């Protein structure tokens, strides 16, 4: 405190971080969050890694120094866990692709809106949908896609089907739900990227006689590539981690990694093996996140 008072007497301010104090005092601003994350994120996840190497035992989880690879051997020897990992990877890849195909045009419409007000309205819609509790959105999805849902009744009413089409409680249902979940993240990543493309690039191509689509394929799309990659990796990481969508839209019939984690821990009380499945998921997801940060660091917007 005396130092702060002392410094204010100087006629010209020395470089400070936001004027809160000299550099070494500014560090205090970051201490609370750093400590919070260290205690409640780094340590628990670190203990989870250790737990995954502890021998299986029943009862409440306690971390021991006894280390073994048994849980990992079990994971990779059981075909249903390997299949779950494969299914999770396939699911996240398919969802990334579909979300990109739908999300890019949506982001493009927002980024190139003639009036700023239009873009703002569309962004508010996207943001409100994104912030709304996923369980509520899935309630709506299930009403639409269920056996007695809107789509099946319409198809039956038109005489196109005699039995309800299975749109839910299968892989397709989980994909449809995850697309609903992930679309806003893809859009928010891409809007900033499309806005960032300098118009003169496209104008130059157009004035040299290129058609709209040719300009799009040769100029706009390549220039958006870093954002597209970042968006896909983000959506991949988010969809592979989702529990609620496979649980409700898959009706526990689509066994993905998050479902297995919950079943191992909450239903079978196998903490150590549950930790192993969790570590596998964590490693896959963090790999995608780290790649996202590498490609996306300079490209993505403030929130996505």
């Amino acid at each position, binding site marked *: 405190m005396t130092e702060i008072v002392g*410094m204010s007497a100087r*006629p*010209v301010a020395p470089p*400070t*971080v*936001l*004027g*809160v104090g000299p550099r070494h005092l*500014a*560090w205090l601003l*970051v201490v*609370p*969050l750093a400590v*919070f994350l260290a205690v*409640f994120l780094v340590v*628990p996840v670190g*203990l989870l890694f250790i737990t995954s190497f502890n021998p299986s035992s029943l009862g409440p*989880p306690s971390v021991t120094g006894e280390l073994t690879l048994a849980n990992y051997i079990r994971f990779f020897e059981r075909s249903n866990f390997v299949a779950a990992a494969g299914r999770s990877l396939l699911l996240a890849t398919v969802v990334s692709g579909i979300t990109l195909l739908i999300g890019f*045009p*949506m982001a*493009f419409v927002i*980024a190139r809106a003639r009036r700023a007000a239009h873009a*703002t309205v569309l962004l508010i819609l996207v*943001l*409100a*949908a994104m*912030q709304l*509790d996923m*369980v*509520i959105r*899935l*309630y*709506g*999805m299930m*009403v639409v896609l269920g056996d007695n849902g*809107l789509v099946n009744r319409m198809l039956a009413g038109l005489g196109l089907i005699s039995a309800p089409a299975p749109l839910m409680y299968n892989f397709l249902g989980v994909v449809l739900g995850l697309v*609903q979940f992930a679309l*806003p993240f893809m859009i928010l990543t891409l*809007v*900033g990227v499309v806005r960032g493309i300098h118009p003169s690039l496209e104008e130059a191509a157009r004035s040299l006689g290129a058609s*709209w689509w040719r300009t799009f394929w040769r100029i706009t799309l390549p220039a958006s590539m870093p954002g597209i990659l970042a968006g896909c990796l983000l959506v991949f990481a988010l969809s*592979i*981690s*989702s*529990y*609620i969508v496979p649980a*409700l839209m898959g009706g526990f019939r689509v066994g993905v990694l*998050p479902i297995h984690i*919950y079943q191992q*821990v909450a239903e079978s009380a196998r903490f150590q093996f549950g930790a192993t499945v*969790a570590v596998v*998921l*964590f490693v896959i*997801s963090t790999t995608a996140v780290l790649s*996202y*940060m590498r490609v996306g*660091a300079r490209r993505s*917007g*403030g*929130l996505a």
Partner: protein
Amino acid sequence: MGRAIPLGMAAIATVGFCYLLLPIVVVVLAGLTAGEILTFPPQGLSLRWVAAFLQSEVYLAAFLFSFRLALMTMVVATILGTAAALFLARGNVIGRQAMRAFFLSPVVLPGVVVGFSLYAFFIATNLGIARTIWGLWIGHVLYSTPYVIATVGAALASCDRSLEEAARSLGASPLRAFRRVTLPNIAQGIQAGAIFAFIVSFGQFEVSLFLSAPNSEPLPIAMYNSMRYKFQPDAAAAGIFAIILVTASVLLTNRLINIRRLIERQEP
């Protein structure tokens, strides 16, 4: 570009926006249905399920629990996030980019894994907060703080630093310069960040899964537990209130800060 957006692209975008909004419209209609069981389209409109929600011991309690938890989360996330954003915003700290990435990372980490590790951590350390509102609170702060950092960070990036330097060179103490010049400039960013933190906590599901107890459930968990067995129109009515809350929050945020600029902002 010389031409407006081509038809094919506009068509896909329209389908996409409908897909995004359709479930929300359906929930509103489902909560207002006059019928006994949920059907679509609804058999006339009524407020009976809204009334049922307001008298429901499960959903109303869960709604209020979520509201309280979101308020608690908002306070801490706003303080932690604003302080960190101030630190990250300026000054050439070594590893600033890596630190920012670390602070924002919880948003994209798998919530089930983080929730499970927190649950195991609370039990192993005998803190006595596993499956209590305090444990949930910690989990929610992890997931809400990044939104505060991003929003306040954007406000700081667009606030002219030379104003503060001018105040300093005129003899204002660093604290005074901050309070009188910088803080008023970013106050709306902080408020917007606080609102984001509130809604993120209010809608949080994955991290709550392992941390909530049967008698004190946040709304998403309570809805999920009932939806596994059957559709309750009063759950949809609870959804309507959540939709109103989220929509109002986003509109309020848009009055405080320019959402468009926040999204379109490019990292320097």
